[in-house]
């Protein structure tokens, strides 16, 4: 399973590096979302600083939809999905590989957006460990849930519009918990961010387990 996960993850990242969709479309889209939020709250800098964690995670959430859609779009052209089924790869390995590739793309995006938040919103860092750990765990949760629902949506007509409808309600806890963690990490709230981290961990573990268990059926039936 782990070997297959490495193989699939490496393949997806290689395709992204060659195709440059993430760098040419997803990253500019995320920066644009952040910039528009900046314009919308420009009159009230305090509010902007206060809301920065939520705006950041909304931008990440919307961008994660594009990353997941892209992850399944490459399996939808010219019979590649049949190729993947015929390859004999462990479906759980395929799931974990796709999740890993999306996580790496999201983390790279978060670094870029993090710089954007500091520059545009003028935020300051109080707890870097919480910031980094919560970002990693939230990325895993977003990627795992996105990959499960991405697979479900991939076999359906209108999958591009279906995916946000499936994913956005489900990942609301990630948005909430990650925002709370970041508010604590940026000092804009007195909340105990580490307690919110446990919700992110639980979400990630549940969706990783769900994906590992169900992906075989999803690959065959969707």
């Amino acid at each position, binding site marked *: 399973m782990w070997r297959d996960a490495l193989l699939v993850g490496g393949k997806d990242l290689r395709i992204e590096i060659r195709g440059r969709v993430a760098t040419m479309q997803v990253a500019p889209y995320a920066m644009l979302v952040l910039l528009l939020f900046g314009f919308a709250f420009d009159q009230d800098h305090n509010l902007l600083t206060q809301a920065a964690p939520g705006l950041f995670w909304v931008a990440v959430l919307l961008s994660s939809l594009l990353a997941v859609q892209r992850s399944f779009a490459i399996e939808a052209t010219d019979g590649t999905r049949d190729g993947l*089924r015929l390859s004999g790869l462990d479906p759980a390995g395929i799931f974990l590989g796709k999740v890993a590739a999306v996580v790496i793309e999201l983390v790279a995006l978060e670094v870029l957006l993090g710089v954007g938040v500091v520059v545009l919103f003028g935020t300051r860092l109080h707890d870097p460990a919480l910031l980094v750990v919560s970002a990693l765990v939230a990325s895993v949760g977003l990627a795992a849930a996105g990959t499960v629902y991405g697979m479900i949506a991939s076999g359906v007509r209108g999958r591009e519009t279906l995916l946000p409808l499936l994913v956005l309600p489900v990942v609301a806890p990630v948005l909430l918990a990650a925002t709370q963690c970041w508010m604590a990490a940026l000092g804009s709230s007195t909340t105990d961010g580490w307690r919110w981290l446990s919700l992110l961990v639980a979400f990630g573990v549940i969706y990783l387990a769900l994906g590992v268990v169900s992906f075989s059926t999803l690959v065959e039936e969707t």
Partner: protein
Amino acid sequence: MDQVIRFRSAVALAGRFPVLAGVDLDVARGDVMLLRGANGAGKTSLLRACAGLVRVVAGEASVLGHDLIQDQRAVRRQVGLVGHQTGLYQEMSPLDNLRFALRAARLGPDRAEPALSTLGITGRLLEAAVADLSAGQRRRVALSVLVARDPEIWLLDEPHAGLDAEHRDLLDGLVLAAAARGRTVVMASHEADRAASLARTIVTIAGGAVESVTAPAPPPGAAGADDRPRTAGEVVPVVA
């Protein structure tokens, strides 16, 4: 003779529509079988069922000893299917596509370059994005995956489509060489003359079922072959 594919009254559905409606078929190891029939007769569905991609829901179906009704996935590593679509990742190079396919099949990636070279994919084509190749070149890359994997059963759906005359001849040679190595080849083709010249058995499909099993007609001047229609499922002696 060792049977590698055995279908009895096999039924497969696409939604509610029966794409295979009671197929009886025996394929012997080393056979080169041509499936022919009108569009929509069920040739592609039969090939996909043999590859474990279409679920057989009733009857009996086994490929290389794997019961497809019990577990349609088990056979996949032992068969190769080249269909209407290439199954190649468009952004990746032919070399990377083959290396990925070989690693997935637990085979050495060093087989990739020789296989591509066999199909005439060399030089700068090795590293070009598949999306930038012509349709014929993409087809040859897809065939290279099959050549590199060299599975027990080769399933070919219109394998000559998109190839020029030189590479059609090359493909014919590869099919005959595979059969000589004991591989089994099942192909669907509308190019009756070319495909029939390769085939040892010709199966006519109609309405999702096997209509007849015959030996190919002898070439002009040869002694007459036994081409009487056979009942579905009857095993035809190999014609050299």
